[in-house]
């Protein structure tokens, strides 16, 4: 419409005024925008760049290869076998069912596995590979690989599974691995504030028992890291960099599997344990417990049927009794009592003590195993015949602390440092111990019981073997289970001298020789007749229930759980000790009749590296041994002749 010039003036003045006003407001807003940009892009840039990197960079752990375990002759004890498996990535597969159908035409897949796979494919992101089949044969695996073009989204992978080629032989020593449990994580978090991220990989396997558990840190290795760039939905776009994983250390054990296998076979039908130790180095050549189990069962998860069978077996196949079992050492402890008294000068070798079958101390009767009594016996006779009364006499002269300190010098009541699960300390009881656990004062009667290895004293077969090795050499010998780590040989177990008067020591040694070689010895019938292989030792029969609870029944008439433990410790050859042996047969009966022959056979096998010929046995024994040996043959594994070359 037409306006007057005044109106036009007015209009454009007003518009101009307000345009300038709003223009300034706009300028202010632009200023705010610019300021905000500066704030985000300059001041907080570092934070946001970090966030951007967090967005795009995905770190994936590359699990290291677990270290291998060998025995002393280089025989494989724990290995990694390739696990040929197939994974499927939904994103690449397109029609999942179609691909699975084509796959099933090629290879057989367990229906349960298929259900699991379908379920997981549905749940997981389309870019995450899901396992379709595991533990394929090489044949099936290559079939799939060759047909890869018609199987979109299927990837062939090689993983590793732990295998124990020695099966039952080393199950108690090497142990086994299994998937990390919540319990494991909690336990590890208690000691290590920054646990290995590998543990959070689903189904990652760590050592659960034995050396697999105790040497986990060495065996595991170090994880590698693959850093890759991922997009918003998690698809990997490219690999940025990669740190390779470092394999775990290979461990060589001191165990000789061939000997271990023989020991297990020899004790096949009883619940027993035995330890063979090299007295020159402390090497544990055999640490055997029967019955044993196959560690391979545990690797992929054991069925509850198998597990219950193992758990409910009264012989306790899952327990490594050689280190976990503790038993009253009984008469095998008498060398300790004797040495304690000798070293303290409380008795001379020639002093005789009269045994009438029992003694009375403070109106308590203490019996000798031989109710008829041994008559007047000196030290060596007392040991050979295992006269209890003689040691009761020593106990009354000794202070219990002297007994305990001697026991500890010989490795009893001490937890030995071997990488096995639940290694027991045993009990070398003193006043403090009794006050703490029983709330009672130590009494003379306790010392009397302890002097013959009964009462509160408890020892493991490993400790008895250590004692035996120390008695044989007079040296401080510690058990050694790991020979080398990644070919680096570990220090010898022999660390020094025991500082026992050599005369006293040889007195004891001769008495031990007498046990197995003199007519009056408790294991005379179990002697070896070839001089080269002669053995020294000591029998022991540990009461499990008090004599008055035995109701005067003979051992074999009592229920199994109430029968005596049969023990034997010894070493061979006597002239130049090389092997220390300890044997404990749970509820086996008499040490001389049950444990001694086993120890003898084990020592002979260790020396000869073969089943001993009947010629080494006394004529009377050969028939029994022959029957025994015929039972063993079927149980022995075949080991290569080339592997029997000693020294590693």
């Amino acid at each position: 419409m037409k306006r007057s010039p005044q109106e036009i003036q007015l209009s454009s003045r007003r518009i101009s005024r307000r345009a300038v006003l709003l223009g300034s407001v706009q300028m202010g807003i632009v200023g705010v925008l610019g300021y905000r940009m500066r704030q985000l892009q300059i001041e907080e840039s570092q934070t946001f760049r970090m966030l951007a990197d967090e967005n795009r960079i995905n770190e994936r752990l590359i699990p290291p290869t677990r270290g291998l375990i060998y025995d002393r002759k280089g025989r494989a004890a724990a290995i990694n076998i390739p696990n040929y498996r197939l994974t499927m990535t939904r994103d690449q597969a397109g029609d999942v069912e179609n691909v699975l159908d084509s796959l099933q035409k090629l290879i057989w897949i367990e229906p349960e596995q298929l259900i699991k796979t379908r379920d997981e494919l549905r749940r997981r992101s389309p870019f995450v590979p899901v396992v379709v089949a595991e533990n394929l044969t090489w044949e099936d695996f290559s079939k799939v690989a060759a047909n890869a073009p018609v199987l979109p989204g299927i990837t062939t992978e090689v993983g590793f599974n732990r295998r124990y080629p020695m099966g039952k032989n080393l199950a108690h020593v090497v142990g086994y691995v299994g998937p990390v449990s919540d319990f494991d994580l909690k336990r590890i978090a208690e000691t290590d504030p920054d646990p290995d991220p590998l543990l959070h990989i689903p189904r990652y396997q760590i050592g659960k028992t034995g050396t697999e558990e105790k040497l986990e840190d060495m065996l595991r290795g170090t994880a590698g890291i693959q850093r890759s760039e991922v997009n918003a939905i998690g698809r990997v776009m490219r690999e940025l960099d990669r740190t390779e994983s470092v394999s775990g250390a290979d461990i060589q054990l001191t165990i000789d599997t061939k000997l271990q296998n023989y020991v297990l076979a020899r004790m096949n039908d009883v619940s027993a344990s035995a330890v063979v130790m090299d007295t020159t180095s402390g090497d544990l050549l055999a640490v055997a417990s029967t019955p044993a189990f196959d560690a391979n069962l545990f690797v992929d998860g054991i069925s509850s049927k198998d597990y219950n069978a193992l758990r409910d077996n009264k012989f306790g196949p899952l327990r490594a009794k050689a280190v976990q079992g503790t038993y009253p050492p009984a008469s095998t402890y008498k060398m300790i009592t004797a040495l304690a008294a000798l070293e303290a000068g409380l008795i001379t070798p020639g002093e005789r003590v009269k045994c009438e079958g029992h003694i009375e101390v403070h109106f308590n009767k203490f019996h000798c195993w031989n109710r008829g009594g041994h008559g007047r016996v000196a030290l060596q006779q007392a040991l050979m015949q295992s006269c209890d009364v003689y040691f009761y006499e020593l106990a009354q002269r000794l202070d219990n602390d002297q007994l305990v300190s001697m026991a500890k010098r010989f490795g009893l009541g001490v937890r030995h440092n071997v990488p096995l699960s639940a290694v027991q300390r045993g009990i070398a009881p003193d006043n403090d111990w009794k006050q703490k656990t029983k709330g009672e004062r130590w009494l003379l009667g306790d010392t009397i019981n302890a002097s013959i290895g009964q009462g509160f004293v408890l020892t493991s077969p490993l400790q008895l073997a250590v004692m035996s090795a120390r008695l044989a050499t007079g040296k401080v010998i510690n058990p050694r289970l790991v020979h080398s780590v990644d070919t680096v040989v570990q220090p010898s177990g022999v660390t020094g001298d025991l500082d026992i008067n050599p005369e006293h020591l040889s007195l004891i040694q001769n008495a031990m020789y007498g046990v197995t070689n003199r007519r009056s010895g408790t294991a005379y019938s179990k002697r070896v007749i070839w001089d080269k292989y002669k053995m020294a030792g000591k029998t022991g029969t540990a009461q499990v229930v008090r004599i008055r609870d035995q109701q005067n029944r003979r051992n074999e008439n009592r229920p199994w759980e109430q029968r005596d433990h049969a023990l034997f410790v010894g070493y061979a050859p006597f002239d130049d000790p090389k092997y220390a042996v300890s044997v404990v047969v749970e509820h086996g009966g008499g040490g001389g009749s049950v444990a001694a022959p086993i120890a003898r056979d084990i020592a002979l096998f260790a020396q000869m590296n073969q089943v001993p010929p009947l010629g080494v046995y006394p004529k009377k024994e050969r028939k029994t041994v022959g029957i025994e040996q015929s039972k063993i043959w079927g149980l022995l594994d075949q080991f290569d002749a080339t592997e029997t070359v000693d020294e590693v």
Partner: protein
Amino acid sequence: MSYLEHRLSVIPTGFGKILALNWAILLLLCAIAGVGFVMLYSVAGGNASTWTNPQIQRFIMGMFGLFVVAMIPIYFWRNVSFIAYVVAIILLIIVEFFGVQGMGAQRWIDLGFMRLQPSEVMKIALVMLLAAYYDWLPLHRTSRPLWVLVPVILILLPVMLVLRQPDLGTSVLLMAGGGAIMFFAGVHWAYFVSVIAAGAGLIFGIFNSRGTTWQLLKDYQYARIDTFLDPSSDPLGAGYHISQAKIALGSGGWTGRGFMEGTQSRLNFLPEKHTDFIFTILAEEFGFVGTMSLLVLYFLLMTFCIVAALGMRDRFSSLVTLGIAMTFFLFFAINMAMVMGLAPVVGVPLPLVSYGGSSMLILLLGFGVLQSAYVHQPRSKV
């Protein structure tokens, strides 16, 4: 116009019109669109055919339209502005019933060769109609309540229709743009003060209506408001867009990560990166230098428009110029504030840079009207 003035000034005709165009504004338009082409090329991962080529085609088409519109005398546009408004209203009603659903809103009419968003048309049509209204209205009636009510109704009618789609961003744009023209035209202060007060009341009402039977906004709009107020409350859900956009912006730093090197965009962490969030790509790849350059380009364009408007004597011309400049300003200011986390995510594209057919086309036609006003103003003989 006085006789004297008429003698001294002349309206360019023929070829002279082309010379009389405001070339600075045209150049700035090309520069801004150029930034858009480069960014679209980058977003598509170095592929021109995905978005860049169609965008260039539309820009050329739009520029052609701009020239045609600019050559037509400004009084023609004033005279057709009411018709344009009515057509836009009809289109909005059509879209209400026959529109294509997209992103949870009814916004498009599919014309075959392009998708037309009637709300875009309305942005320009409303500006033109209001300018024409105040050109027609005697000055002394400008602030009379009855005569203030008319433009308010003219504004609220399309706002209601757009809100029903629902498209919060465009409704805000329409209201603010319309209000700005009323302000330029000289409506009394008191009205604006009371409207702002009422607006505050409305916001209060919106928040109070939540969860009741008379809920004013859709749930997803509430969610957007929530996450705007506290984006960290839901970083992987509704706040995802804002958090990721801020990460992209911030990680650019001074000079950015380099052309086509933005990880946030290349790896798809950014939402709607070729449309509403394209500014974040620019920020990530060219950094502070890049974003400031674009901001300066926008600011210059706005300033040139205002300066051009100041020189115009014709009321319709200057109001339509300021209105278009204001609409343009609101576009980029809301978009930038949105991606920088200063405003809720309301779905406003970055003008001339974001990929989108009708938005750019209509905007360029709007600038055509602006150019027409510039060209057809009397100027002194040289």
